[in-house]
């Protein structure tokens, strides 16, 4: 482990410390996610006006787009964690990468289904082999491949390394998902939200969308911590701190 990694990070990377740290932080992240989610839903479903073209169907946007962003964001996180895991062999990075995958797969799945639920009234079809749709489907397959590869190995750390490798190979798909609308002219919408410049969307619709985006980010943190804690228990089964937890839990 290189010396330039600050000491606190190094400490945090130690499984028992992180286990405790994540345990205290998780409820806060979950609480924020629920609060922001509730506000965003109220704003999106009640306050925001209907779209002049799409009517009320556009309200799927408040879950479709944040989920779509999360599907790519989580993949990026997974890719970075995978890289760290492979280069420095830090156990926590392996776990973060591997436990991000199911959450990412969940959001990808939501994106695909909400997208096709939206597509039926708007395009008249559930599914076409459009570039963005296809690349998002490929993203789902990549997530499933990472999850499957991780669990296919008997040695979990070996599985984590192999799956991390796949995650890194697959990262080229993320820019393809994002830019596919620019590169090929297709059915799917181009960019309408622009965080830094001027968005093409009215503020009434935009703020619930951005709030929901924040809510999903917090949700991700909460869910990730929850999963990482469980996985650390499975991975560190030989260590005393885990044995203690196991015995304590057996007693209670």
């Amino acid at each position, binding site marked *: 482990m290189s010396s330039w990694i600050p000491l606190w990070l190094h400490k945090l990377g130690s499984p028992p410390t992180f286990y405790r740290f994540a345990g205290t932080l998780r409820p806060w992240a979950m609480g924020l996610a629920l609060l922001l989610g509730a506000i965003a839903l109220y704003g999106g479903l009640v306050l925001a006006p209907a779209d002049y073209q799409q009517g009320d169907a556009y309200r799927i946007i408040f879950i479709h787009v944040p989920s779509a962003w999360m599907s790519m964001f989580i993949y990026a996180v997974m890719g970075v964690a995978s890289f760290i895991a492979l280069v420095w062999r830090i156990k926590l990075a392996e776990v973060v990468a591997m436990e991000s995958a199911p959450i990412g797969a969940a959001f990808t799945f939501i994106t695909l289904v909400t997208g096709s639920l939206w597509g039926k009234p708007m395009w008249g079809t559930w599914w076409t082999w459009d570039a963005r749709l296809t690349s998002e489907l490929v993203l789902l397959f990549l997530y499933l*491949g990472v999850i499957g590869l991780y669990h296919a190995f008997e040695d979990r750390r070996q599985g984590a390394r*192999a799956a991390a490798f796949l995650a890194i190979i697959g990262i080229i798909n993320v820019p393809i998902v994002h830019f596919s609308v620019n590169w090929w002219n297709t059915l799917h919408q181009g960019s309408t939200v622009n965080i830094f410049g001027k968005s093409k969307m009215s503020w009434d619709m935009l703020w619930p969308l951005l709030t929901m985006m924040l809510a999903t980010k917090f949700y991700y943190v909460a869910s990730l911590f929850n999963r990482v804690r469980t996985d650390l228990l499975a991975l560190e089964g030989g260590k005393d701190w885990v044995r203690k937890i196991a015995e304590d839990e057996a007693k209670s």
Partner: protein
Amino acid sequence: MNRPGVATACAAMLRRDLTLAWRRRGDIAMPVLYALIVTMLFPFALGPEDTLLQRIAGGVVLVTVLLAMLLALDAMFSSDIEDGSLEQLVLAPQPLALMLGMKILAHWLTTALPLIVIAPLLAAMLHLPGAVIPVLLLALLLATPLLSLLGAVLVALTAGTRRSGMLLALMLLPLCMPAVIFAAGAVAAAQQGLPWLAPIAWLAAALVLAVVLAPLACAAALRIALDA
């Protein structure tokens, strides 16, 4: 003590895999026969209507050839792992990526090349217009090594697992989809008399990238697979 140069080692590796393939030449013929069977079954299953067959010919040949290649992919490293040859290869004082590159080359030569050779026959069996066949061959010449290279990386990744089959298929699907799309796109364009250079260029670019990166990735993946 005379350490062999890299060229000698590459030659030894390539010769080894080609000799092995030749000893089991029945297995080389397997994908070819498989592709022939599929193509022969289509007229039976669909009825021998010329226009229909002609319409689907390009796509069927492409899909058949690529799938026939997948057949042989799974076995790429398995026998070497079982009999301990791979350990010896990893321990050899030679760049592993290069040696694996040779293995991939041998694999392409023994599975893809025979398929490409009979592709015109397959195409003719389904009445594909003769003018399209060169484009089909070009597309295959670019798409098949791409598949070999990507496939090798994935096979290496799953080599340490017991449930390799499904995973391999699951991971290959997203990776080979673009290759099929571009190759089929080129053939379809040629069949309709449209320009077909763009998709072929994309395939070529992807191939160049894969030739450089895939052996390295493959070596790294195999080291992980052995480490248990």
